[in-house]
């Protein structure tokens, strides 16, 4: 399979209440081995997946939030986060985890994986894909 397709994983749901966020992340990790052009979109309640300080001890569910910080190691480096979705939820970039990757082409400099985009820009990202998988 030499063809490279643009894959977008769309995350619009909050974590823990339902399993979609977690199983979406499992697809992304497996998919990383296929050398496709991968982007993740976080909009609507999906932005809640990236909040820092998640502590699931008392509810008994597995805390998978650290996995987002490991995405860079899998060369998943484009996490588009919609600004309007954050604002409606009273959040800013500061409320989200710091997610970075090492840029091979720039002497392994650490760069932010989260790209804050407007709703219109998110629409452009979505329109630029070959495969859109929604969770």
């Amino acid at each position: 399979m030499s063809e490279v397709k643009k894959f977008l994983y769309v995350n619009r749901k909050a974590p823990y209440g339902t399993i979609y966020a977690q199983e979406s992340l499992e697809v992304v990790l497996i998919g990383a081995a296929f050398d496709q052009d991968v982007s993740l979109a976080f909009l609507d309640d999906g932005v809640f997946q990236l909040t820092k300080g998640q502590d699931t001890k008392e509810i008994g569910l597995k805390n998978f939030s650290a996995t987002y910080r490991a995405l860079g190691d899998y060369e998943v480096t484009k996490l588009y986060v919609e600004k309007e979705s954050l604002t409606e939820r009273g959040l800013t970039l500061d409320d989200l985890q710091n997610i970075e990757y090492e840029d091979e082409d720039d002497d392994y400099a650490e760069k932010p994986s989260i790209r804050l985009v407007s709703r219109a820009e998110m629409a452009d990202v979505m329109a630029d894909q070959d495969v859109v998988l929604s969770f």
Partner: protein
Amino acid sequence: MGTLHTVNKSPFQNQTLLSCLAHAKDGDAILMIEDGVYGAASGTSVSEALTSNGADVALYVLGADLAARGIDAGRMADGVTSVDYEGFVDLAADHDRVQNWL
């Protein structure tokens, strides 16, 4: 030929149709299926949002889901076209990609 978006949730209960409308671009199409078909009716608290969306987006509804829910085809909002499952297949084939708003 743009994106085919599908929406399968009632717009009276869930924000998904509004979010889809806010991200659809000129030349895209939105197909309402399952409980999403309630969004296709005229004279409701959400029909204004559907028909006055700024972009040049074609609106479709799956007739089979409309009939199941007892919504008379005469109640559909202006500009919404009813299709059957074969029409759904055609829409999917005729657009560059399908984005399912779940």
